[in-house]
C-alpha cells in the first residue's frame, strides 16, 4: 500500500484475521500500524494485492455496499474523531442513528455504556470540555455501541491511567469473548507483554506474527471488573 506516489507504507502483507481472534498490533511510529488499520476499516484501498473483508473483495465491492461492511467494524481512533458539536451521548448514539434507530431504542444502551466507561456524569458534555482520557473512553464507547464483528483500536489506552487502561482492556476482552475480532495497535509494551495475547508486529511496512506468549499477568481482580450489561 502506498499514498499517491510516495514509497510503499505496507508491503508483502499476508494477514488473515480469524473470527473471534484477539491481536495486539505493535511497531515503531511510522511502521504502518495506522495504515494497516485503515485498510481493515476500509478507509483506504490497497494499491496492489487483494483485501477481503467479511468475504467481500474490497477492490471490486460496489461503493454502495461499503457502508454496510463498515457498520460491522468498530474503530477507536488515536485522534478520537469525535464530533465536537455533539454531546457525549449523541457521539455514542451516532452509529445507531445512522442505522435508523430511534432515541427510544438506543437511549438506555448508550447511557449504560457511557456509565460503564466512567462518563455517566458527563452525558451532556461536549468533547472540547472533556479530558484526553475522557475523550478516549467516549471514542471506545462509540466504537463498541453497535457490538461490531471487528473492533480496531489505535492506541486505546494511550491517554488513560493504568486503572482505566485495564478497565478498557477488560471491555475489549469481554467483547472478544462474545466473538468480536479485536485488533489493538499499541505502544504499551508492558500491557502487550502482560496480556499474553498474540502480537502482529510491523517493521518497515512488513508484518510478522508472534503467537500468544506467557499467560496473562493482569491483576487478580481483572476479571472482576464490572461487565457492561449491554454487551
Amino acid at each position, binding site marked *: 500500500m502506498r499514498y499517491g506516489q510516495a514509497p510503499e507504507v505496507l508491503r508483502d502483507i499476508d494477514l488473515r484475521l480469524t473470527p473471534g481472534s484477539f491481536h495486539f498490533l505493535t511497531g515503531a511510529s511510522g511502521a504502518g500500524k495506522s495504515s494497516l488499520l485503515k485498510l481493515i476499516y476500509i478507509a483506504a484501498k490497497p494499491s496492489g494485492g487483494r483485501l477481503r473483508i467479511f468475504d467481500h473483495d474490497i477492490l471490486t465491492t460496489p461503493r*454502495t455496499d461499503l457502508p454496510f461492511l*463498515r457498520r460491522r467494524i468498530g474503530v477507536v481512533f488515536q485522534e478520537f474523531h469525535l464530533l465536537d*458539536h*455533539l454531546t457525549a451521548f449523541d457521539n455514542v448514539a*451516532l452509529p445507531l442513528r445512522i442505522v435508523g434507530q430511534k432515541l427510544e431504542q438506543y437511549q438506555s444502551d448508550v447511557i449504560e455504556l457511557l456509565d460503564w466507561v466512567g462518563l455517566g456524569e458527563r452525558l451532556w458534555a461536549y468533547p472540547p470540555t472533556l479530558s484526553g482520557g475522557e475523550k478516549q473512553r467516549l471514542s471506545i464507547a462509540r466504537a463498541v455501541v453497535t457490538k461490531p464483528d471487528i473492533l480496531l483500536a489505535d492506541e486505546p489506552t494511550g491517554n488513560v491511567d493504568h486503572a482505566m487502561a485495564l478497565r478498557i482492556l477488560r471491555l475489549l476482552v469481554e467483547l472478544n469473548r462474545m466473538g468480536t475480532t479485536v485488533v489493538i495497535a499499541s505502544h504499551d509494551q508492558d500491557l502487550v507483554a502482560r496480556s499474553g495475547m498474540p502480537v502482529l508486529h510491523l517493521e518497515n511496512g512488513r508484518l510478522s506474527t508472534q503467537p500468544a506468549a506467557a499467560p496473562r499477568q493482569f491483576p487478580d481482580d481483572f476479571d472482576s471488573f464490572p461487565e457492561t450489561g449491554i454487551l
Partner: protein
Amino acid sequence: MTVLENRGSDPAASILPAQDGRDLGLVFTVAVLSFLACIAVIAALAADRAAQGWARQLSDSATIQVRPLGGESGPEAAARAAEAVAGVKGVSEARAMDRKSAEALLEPWLGKGNIPADLPLPQLVTVDLSPDHPASVADMNRALAAAHVSAAVDDHSRWMADVRTSGNVVRLSAAVACLLIATAAGSVVAFATRQGLAARRDVVEVLHLCGAEDQFVARLFQMRFAALATRAAAYGALAAATVGAILRLTGGSDGFSPALPIAWTDLLACLAAPALGAIVAALSARSVAMAILREQV
C-alpha cells in the same frame, strides 16, 4: 427523568453543526432571489389581467366607419348603418357616434377645444356584440350591403392579436425570469453545499466510518439547505408581498395602474415561494453532495 425530557424539545440533535455566519450570505442571496421572483410573478399576473381585460373589451365590440353616399349626410348614413346592423344576430346594440363623442376620442391627441367645427370627422358606429355568440364581420357586411350603406367593419381582431401577443410575451418573460432565478438559487445552493462539505469534511469522514451511506450524508445537507432556503425564500416573499400591498393600496381602484392592475389575490402567489425555494435547494444540495461524495473512497 428520561433522556428525552433531559434533552428538552430536540430529541434528534442535528448531526451537522449548527448554522454559522457563513450561512447568512446564502440566506440574503436566496431572499433577494425570492423577492425578485415574487415581484416578477405579481407583475406578470397583473399585466396578464390587464391584457385579458383589454382583449375582452375588444372582442365584445366592433366599430363601423360609414361613408355617406350621394346627398346623404354623415349622421344620416351612420344612423342607417346602426339600424342595419342592430338587427343582425349576435349584435346587442349598435349606436351611431355623435360628433361630440368623436371629438372626445380625438382630444387626447389634438387637445380640448382644438378641433375646428368644420373639420370633417369619420362617421362611426359602435357595435356591442353578444359575448357568447358575437356577430361576424361577414354578417354585418351583408346587413350593411342590403341596406345600401357603404361602410367598413372593424372587429378589432388586429388589436386583439397585438394585445394577446403582449400578454403572452409578459407571461413568457415572467416564466423565464422565474426559471433563471430558480437556476441562480440552485447554483448558489450548490456552491454553498460544496463549501459546506469541504468545511465539514471531518464530520463527513466520521459519518462514513460509522457506516453512513452517501444518501444519509447527502440528506443531512439536503435538509439543512432546504430549511435554510425555506426561511430565506419566506423573507423574500414577505418583502415582495409587502411591496405588492403598498402598490395595491397606493394605486386605488386601478390596482397600481391600468397596465398593472394588481389584485390582492396576486399577492397569494408569494405563498408558493418558500416551498419552491425548499424544493430547488433540496434538489441542488442533494445532487451536488452525491456527486462529491461519490468521488471519495
